[in-house]
């Protein structure tokens, strides 16, 4: 093992991490090749406003290599400086400073928009909304945008309903090759593993309550059960609740489940799903996390007002309730896989980020025909991602023969 040190070639840490991620991104590599060969993005200014870490860095670099002029923005709390400097070294314009506060973030966001991007790839629709508020002349000249998340698509639809959206936006989140994988396998795996990494505890034999059985909740339940947990699902939609029952979980309202809830994952994306009353029903020492959403799902203002919070372990805050019982909140209630782990795994982000690249392609090629509004990504793009990934894994697809086509259409 002495050989290690002397032979090790040192690359910059950020560049090394970006290169590591690219190894797990066969779909993006393939899409980059296709975009480069077609020249679709040549000369376009693309602004990438996603969490700045090695996987999204590869998207930015791929777009750049395909001929686009790429600038990057990210808020300080989601920026990895090592990655930011590696992108700057590669010649991209970077508007992101690790640890920057709200004010500085806003300045950086404005500077980013002043680069006059033709296309913005957004996360949470923050930059699309800022552009509409402060840079209407930019919005008028832009070709369009793409949005990554459920929580970003929702306000864009609302804006569109009120006639306030003046851009075509592709809802990347609504692609099947995004939510069926990213939300289920990506967020599911990374949130459950982050909980185990942060606490150094087991889930085997523990009662775990998953609130919300959407795609994220489904993934959290699946991975928690795989780690040996006894999963209880709380859900207000009767169909989803029935699905949870058929997947082998107990289904109980949060109030009914509370006395057994040793670990809680809130996976609803809805504010205030866990209340003060729920907390009082929990066993002492219960561990509470949010998966996919954020601290708004938890009664954080109530907990903070108690004044009893103390950090008992990195990323674990313990609150003593008036009853004397304690609850432990992970990552201050923020989505724990991003706050205190490395986010989703590489392979699943390869698919999600490839869809962003394909959304940019769709905007570039259809710009003239698209009016303002929220659009789905094309079915071809959705399928292309699946086909490339399957091919990479050595899987083969059943060919669709004329006979099968005829059989499917017969009546």
């Amino acid at each position, binding site marked *: *093992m002495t050989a*290690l040190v002397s032979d090790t070639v040192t690359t910059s840490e950020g560049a090394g991490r970006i290169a*590591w991620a690219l190894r797990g991104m066969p779909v993006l590599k393939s899409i980059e090749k296709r975009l480069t060969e077609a020249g679709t993005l040549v000369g376009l200014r693309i602004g990438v406003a996603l969490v700045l870490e090695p996987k999204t860095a590869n998207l930015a670099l791929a777009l750049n290599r395909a001929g686009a002029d790429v600038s990057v923005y990210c808020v300080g709390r989601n920026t990895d400086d090592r990655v930011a400097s590696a992108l700057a070294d590669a010649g991209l314009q970077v508007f992101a400073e690790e640890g920057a506060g709200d004010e500085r973030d806003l300045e950086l966001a404005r500077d980013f928009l002043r680069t006059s991007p033709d296309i913005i790839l957004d996360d949470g629709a923050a930059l699309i909304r800022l552009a509409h508020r402060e840079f209407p002349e930019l919005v008028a000249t832009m070709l369009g945008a793409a949005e990554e998340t459920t929580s970003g698509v929702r306000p864009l639809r609302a804006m569109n309903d009120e006639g306030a959206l003046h851009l075509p936006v592709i809802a990347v989140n609504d692609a099947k090759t995004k939510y069926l994988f990213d939300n289920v396998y990506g967020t599911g795996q990374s949130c459950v593993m982050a909980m185990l990494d942060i606490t*150094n505890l*087991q889930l085997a034999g523990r009662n775990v309550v998953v609130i919300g059985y959407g795609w994220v909740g489904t993934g959290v339940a699946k*991975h928690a059960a795989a*780690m040996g947990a006894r999963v209880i699902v709380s859900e207000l939609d009767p169909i989803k609740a029935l699905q949870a029952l058929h997947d082998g979980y107990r289904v109980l309202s949060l109030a009914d489940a509370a006395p057994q809830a040793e670990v809680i994952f809130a996976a609803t994306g809805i504010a205030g799903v866990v209340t003060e009353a729920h907390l009082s029903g929990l066993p002492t020492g219960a561990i509470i996390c949010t998966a996919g959403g954020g601290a708004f799902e938890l009664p954080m203002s109530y907990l903070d007002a108690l004044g009893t919070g103390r950090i*008992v372990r990195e990323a674990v805050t313990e609150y003593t309730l008036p009853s004397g019982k304690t609850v432990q909140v992970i990552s201050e209630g923020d989505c724990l896989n991003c706050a205190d782990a490395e986010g989703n795994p590489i*392979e699943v982000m390869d698919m999600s980020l490839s869809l962003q690249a394909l959304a940019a392609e769709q905007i570039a090629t259809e710009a003239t025909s698209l009016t303002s509004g929220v659009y789905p990504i094309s079915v071809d793009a959705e399928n292309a991602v699946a086909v490339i990934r399957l091919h990479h894994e050595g899987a083969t697809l059943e060919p669709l023969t004329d006979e099968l086509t005829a059989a499917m259409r017969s009546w």
Partner: protein
Amino acid sequence: MQCLSAPGVSLTDEIAGEKTDEKVEQSMNEVVATLSEPTTPPVGDASVGQAKIEWVRRHSPVLNGFVRKTLADGALTGVRIAVVVHLEAKTAFLATVLADAGAEVIVAGSNPRTTNGDVVEALRAQGLTVVAEPDGDYDSWERELLAAADYAPDYIIDDGAELTMRMAQFRPDLYQRLQGVSEETTTGTSRLHAMSAAGKLPFKTLTANDARCKHLFDNKFGTGQTTLQALLNLTNRQIAGARVVVVGYGYVGRGIAQYAQAMGARTFVIETDPVRALEAHMDGHTIGAAKDVLPTATMVVTATGGMRAIGEADFPYLRDDVVLANAGHHDLEVDVDALAAASTLTTEPRTNIVTYRLGDRDIHVLSGGALVNIAGGSGHPVEIMDLTFAVQGLGIHYLATTDLADGVHIIPKHLDDAIAAAKLDSLGVTLDEVRPEQEDDSADWLEGIPSA
């Protein structure tokens, strides 16, 4: 107890030829008197270490309850115990429980890469003797183990029999006056049996690994869960759809394969024992020889407890971009030295990942081939180590209070059962007892059979 932090304090000169306990005690006291202040700068933050140990205490109902009560009978008062296990918060909690029972505890690490500096300082602040430093290498670790030996322990809680072996080799006089050893791992158990068979084990030993409360949980669930955690955390890779090869289907291998399968991986097992291989087959894993299953693997985890489970002969079968990790005791279960020798280019793309270029393939090794869940993670879950260290704590108490022949022993069933019962009790679970009518009727029909 005094704080002795200078590593490498040697008592051998003082006790050469004079092996009575009184003399050793006297020498100890002299050394203690001259070294009562730490002579090295702090290697971590004691308050951070203390918080880590406190977290362990909260989730260790067995060690903190049943074991603490059992050890309170004074049997360990003044008994010198060397604890040589991966030195992080859980081991530290065991050490404090022993110290609280009156033992003089000397703490060392069982691997140079796994010692936590914050925990070291927290133990020192509590007055325990720690001879391990973080960020060590194999040379510093050798010195630390010999320093632990030189404290002339009565008993050792050992891991891989690392200290026991070194005392036998390098401190023969102190080895002769050892009272007993309780050993943690499968690897160490094999070593003790070998020493015993060779007639070179002049004291009683317990193999904690053979306790059901150890191997059924620690090896399988503890290593299984945390190996998966480390693998995914270090690489940021996805487990669903990954093709994971597990080498060795003992308890550790079973656990890794089970968790990987449950999380959506396709699992393959390489095993030389036909019965275990058949078991893996029935558990739903794909069994095959290295040449048949390695070429499909995206991740390979070794769990044989032996050496070179993935060695030079296997390298040709590894595909480009495969991740190799080790979950067994030896750092050479993946033959990293051979890999380095064969490699044309070595890079470190991420912390704890080294990439070796073999022809046109890149082979990644996690944590230098050391136990990945400890060197690249935070070790076993607390609840698991509560059981394992209950076996160790009670084991030392049993050795100290029971007349046993020299050689290798297993912890008695009633203690093993008591640990599980204490854990279930902490969960609020009550068990049924066997009613007389539920017992087999062998007594009745045996009566009707004429004696031979």
